């Protein structure tokens, strides 16, 4: 029982201190691996692979996976609840504040520059997704025009352009687009 409490507390701490995105939990997981016999540091790379190839936020997937290694279903739930509890409390508190001050002059001033900044952040994340999915830059030592055929993903680029045109012409539900993507990937051996 105390083991579960420790697990809950450790993930509560991760939830409280990992600011900004799933990969922010990584250093904490390394520390856990050193501190407890729950899993090894080598297992962390498996965790990342599983978390990235399953849907959902990475942090939640990592907590579920780690918790499962510790104590199957109950372990998963304990770790995940520990992880999200701090942010739920904080966001509820911020929500109250936000509703009260939404029409405040300073809050409006802040959001005027904040929204474009977030747009820039998301664009940057989108670029890194595209860079890794359209090109195989790690397959070659030097990227040059001469070995272009070995680092450019032809199938991927065709799919990208085709999907871009398709979604511009017709409004398709994002879930349908992801399912279509998965099927194309399996059929055409991406």
């Amino acid at each position, binding site marked *: 029982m105390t083991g579960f409490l420790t697990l809950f507390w450790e993930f509560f701490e991760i939830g409280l201190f990992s600011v900004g995105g799933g990969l922010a939990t990584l250093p904490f997981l390394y520390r856990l691996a050193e501190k407890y016999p729950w899993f090894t540091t080598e297992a962390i790379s498996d965790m990342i692979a599983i978390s990235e190839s399953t849907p959902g936020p990475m942090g939640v997937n990592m907590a579920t996976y780690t918790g499962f*290694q510790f104590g199957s279903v109950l372990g998963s*739930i304990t770790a995940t609840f520990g992880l999200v509890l701090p942010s739920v409390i904080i966001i509820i508190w911020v929500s109250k504040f936000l509703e009260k001050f939404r029409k405040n002059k300073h809050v409006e001033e802040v959001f005027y520059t*904040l929204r*474009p900044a977030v747009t820039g952040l998301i664009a940057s994340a989108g670029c890194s997704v595209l860079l890794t999915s359209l090109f195989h830059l790690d397959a070659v030592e030097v990227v040059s025009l001469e070995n272009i055929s070995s680092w450019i993903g032809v199938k991927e680029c065709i799919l990208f352009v085709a999907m871009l045109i398709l*979604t511009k012409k017709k409004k398709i539900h994002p879930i349908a687009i992801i399912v279509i993507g998965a099927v194309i990937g399996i059929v055409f051996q991406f």
Partner: protein
Amino acid sequence: MNILWQLFTSFSRIGAFTFGGGYAMLPLLQQEVVEKRGWSTEDEILDYFAIGQCTPGIIFVNTATFVGYKQKGVLGAIFATLGAITPSIIIVMIISSVLNGFADLPVVQHAFGAIRVVVGVLIYNAVSGMWKKSVVDKLCVCVVFVAFFIATCTTISPAWIVFGATVFGLFLGKMGYKGGAKQ
């Protein structure tokens, strides 16, 4: 009860189809929360992202808590959050108990090779939508590019970019600058 259930199912649906971390859920959020349910505006989603970026925790979970709270208080926040994390918990539990080496299966790798590409398309479309909403004048264009540049070319944490934009906004306000947002 009905709205609580809707919050739960909507966020489950987003959670079940978000691949590849925080920002990939943006197109799904726009579809479910903004267009289908009308729970938030696009601007509010951006605000939640900005706040989620500099508060602890996972951005998707934070956004779910925000939307849920706005609809139905603390109970709404809890239902939306539970909805957001339930699919991951179930899927990861199944995969870690049944399949060893799931991520190495050829079929999974093929599927993901293409899923990443279409997620890129989805993010591209989402960003162009956000651009229309958030970029109201030339100064905003500069802010987008500066944030993009810092996020892409440096290892500075996004939390600092959000913090910098906040300070800049307050500074402009103090200088009496009237942004396009106040038209």
